């Protein structure tokens, strides 16, 4: 599904360049559950954003489902992003002014889905994530774990082929984190590809493959037999 070839990412600081990703080659298949690990500042977020088409490589090729993202018009790239990807953030980033229900509904609105269909899709998700009772609450009325649950629900409501998660459990207690990981695993089983960034070895084991970054270089790439797999 994803092919990265000789990807570079640097920021210009005056005349010199400060490198974040260097000569990165990576293939990810459909339905894989990949974990990106590495020390702080290694470039994990940068890589995730690039795969999620929120950021562009400074050099190199990026093919997504056979299409060349690096040479694509930004409008078309946004469409790809919209049609195939869901994002989960460490800080949840729910929209404060919207209720749980509306937060989950919003991605569907941007995809012009009819009101009736929208209602049933959101109802299904609420049901599945066990948050029906919370649907009319605003984010500030929820615990962190509950907020992240909504965050995941919002990311998957549009049935993405790829779920991107940047330290999704970083702000959560281990108990809450476990719940999110189990959810990811369930989605993975249903065929959704997942790429997550985490510092937790334990969380990494939920996935099927671990990629280690260090100073922008790919240091290791190994298959794992995760928990419950």
């Amino acid at each position: 599904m994803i092919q990265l070839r000789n990807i570079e990412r640097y920021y210009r600081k005056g005349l010199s360049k400060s490198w974040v990703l260097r000569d990165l080659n990576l293939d990810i298949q459909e339905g894989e559950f990949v974990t990106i690990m590495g020390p702080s500042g290694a470039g994990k977020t940068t890589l995730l954003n690039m795969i999620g088409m929120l950021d562009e490589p400074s050099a190199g090729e990026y093919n997504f489902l056979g299409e060349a993202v690096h040479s694509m018009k930004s409008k078309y790239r946004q469409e790809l992003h919209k049609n195939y990807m869901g994002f989960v953030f460490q800080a949840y980033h729910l929209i404060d002014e919207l209720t749980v229900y509306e937060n989950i509904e919003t991605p569907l609105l941007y995809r012009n889905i009819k009101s009736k269909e929208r209602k049933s899709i959101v109802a299904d998700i609420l049901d599945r994530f066990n948050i029906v009772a919370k649907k009319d609450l605003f984010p500030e009325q929820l615990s962190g774990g509950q907020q992240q649950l909504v965050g995941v629900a919002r990311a998957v409501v549009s049935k993405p082929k790829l779920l991107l998660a940047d330290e999704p459990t970083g702000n959560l207690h281990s108990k809450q984190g476990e719940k999110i990981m189990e959810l990811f695993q369930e989605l993975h089983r249903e065929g959704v590809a997942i790429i997550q960034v985490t510092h937790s070895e334990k969380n990494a084991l939920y996935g099927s493959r671990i990629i280690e970054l260090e100073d922008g270089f790919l240091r290791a790439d190994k298959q794992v037999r995760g928990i419950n797999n």
Partner: protein
Amino acid sequence: MFKNYIKIAFRQLRKHKLFSALNIFGLATSMSVCLLLIMIIADQYGYDDFHDNGNRIYRVISASSENQLPTQASFATTSRTVASDLKADYPFVENTVRLLTIGETVHIGEKKFEENVHALLVDQSFLETFSFGWTTGDQRTALLEPRSVVLTEGAAKRFFPYSDPMGATITLSDLGEYTVTGILPDPPIHSHIQFDYLISYASTATFTKEQHEEAQTHEAYNKIWRGMAYVLLDENNDRQKLDAALAEIAATYSLRDEKVQFLFQAQPLSKIMPSEDLSNEIGPGTPTIVLYFLMTLGLIIIFSACFNYTNLSVARSLKRAKEIGVRKVIGARRKDIIFQFLGEAVLIASIALVVALFLLELLIPAFYGLDPFIGENIHLTRTPQLYLSFFGFSLLVGLFAGMLPALNISRLQPIQAIQQLSNLKLFSRMGIQKVLITFQFALSLIFILAVTIILQQQKHVLNTDYGIRIDDILNVRMGEVDYDLFAQKARQVVGVKDISASKLVLLVGENADAKATFKDGRDSMDLSYNAVSPNYLANMDIELVAGKNLPENVNSKGEQFVLLNEMAVKRMGFDTPEAAIGESITLDTINLSIIGVTSDFHQQDIWFSSVQPFALRQNMDQKRNANIHISEANSKATIAAIRSIWDEISPDESMIAFFTSTRVNHLSKFFRMGSSIIGFVGFLTILIACLGLLGMVIYNIEGRVKEVGIRKVLGASAGNIVWQLSKGFFLLLAIAIVLAIPLTVFGANLWLQNFVTRIAITPAILLVGIGIIVLLGLLTVISQTYWAARTNPIESLRNE
């Protein structure tokens, strides 16, 4: 989606109450004023749109000159032979209408009607060309015959409350008897042609010269100052042909008259109101420029309010950046974000509109209250179309106000918005806001100064000594009444101090000229004069500086003596007034001896004309006006007594009298109105500017709460912090002042050039304005910064 936007917008409103309140209040006040302006403009542009053939009707307007022919017509009137010539010689002219206004007293049996009896002399074609409607009688023949009259329904009811008017007779004081041949509805308010009854134009053939000055001249091709001609073109409505025809006719007339050149132009019916500035206008004739002025004011107000919205939105956009980033990540396109933000702005504008509609209902009576003159010329009407245009207006306002924030914030890159809020450069360090706020305050200052200067100038003009008495002079038009008889009786009235006779009433724009030649026959000038009785000087408080007054009795030799003012003798080359005494001067053909010299006094008006050389001549038989100096106390009773003397002498004619001061102060009214309108707009501008500043300060402080906390922990005093938070805004105020002052001084001087006596723009005037602006600005800023400086630092830091 749309519903969703609305929902979110409402939540935003509720959540950010301060932001919403500032915006809605600011927009609503400004909008209400703009709505009023829309009503005024709709009223003024709504004239004459009820005629079925309106787009084919033109009025012939004219100009004439002995020298260079002007390119622009200056009279709304024209010679009516143009109408007959067009009808006779140009087949594309379907019809023409000749029209003359007359003001006559109407007699019906014993009853006399003097008020609201405006009459028009019109051709039968008037009824066919225009669409005033018809009530009774034969519309096709009613005005064909001489001595026919058609009444409006209103006039018919007033003239004949108990009987059938058809076939009845009405008598005009000068013009004889007429038979009622028809009745038509009252003309709509929005018609520039207003009348109470119509007399057949054919009647003019029966007038004698004594009856009507137009009796002999109405068919004269070269009399263009009275009467109108309207033209209805055929279905092809070829304006160019009409223009060519009028040029042809003008050329013919110019050849026929050796001295005078003529210009005739076609003016479409729709262009009559609001009008170009034409003399002899019959409608309200509001000059287009006045409406443009109002529109400009309206635009300034609404732009200012829109800027506020923009400003506050920009100030808040940092807070909303995260939301926008998230929305983009979950699938929003730029378009979606733009719609959302525009939607919010439109919603706020719509709510503001509702508030503005309430304010408007308060504003309308206040507006009418400004001056009775307004009610006479402006008829604000509420129609469904008007409300539709209000709605359209609020929509535009919303879109305009929301555009900049929408375009800007929608450009955000999502990862920047979400992850790096701190170094987000949304609006290049608030540059736009600063520019807008500065602009608003500069504008406010300009308005404050404008009002001050206008009022000062008005006061100055009214308080200047003009060398002639202005107050308490009641001028009575003598008409057919004998002055000496009237004066003798009126002198006995308690409260009458003195009475003098004069040909003209000075200071109200009346003028008479003679060609003056003196010693050196080659040197001559046009000399304005008035012919007066000898007591005129004393009565009008004009000082005699040399020689003697005019003699009491005019002897058999006729006019012999003349008084000149100082400026006139200086102009003649005399070094002192004394030197001129006994010298001779020829006015036109009459040789006169200079008997005395008076000090200079104003003649034409006190506003725009300066003192000119002037002569006071002996009054032979031109005692057209009685200038009655009455005491201020009990003036009502005095006037009533004078009136009864008049009625005794001349029971048929009613007395026409006016105070010089009323006429002179006529312009004061416009000053007052102008300054109240500008003052009101200025008040709004200041209010809006302060609201904007308030919002900006509040958001600025919100963003710096932590900084303030840290500074306080480090030991900064409250005063210190107030200064830290406020100094940026003070700088903006200073820039606004520096911008506004030269602009104001320049503009004001340009305006003041129009006046003969004018104030100087002193630093004192400027300082007052600056003081007001600085005070308001300081209060706004410090009210907030002081509050921020007083809060406990631990609170703000703990919240982090």
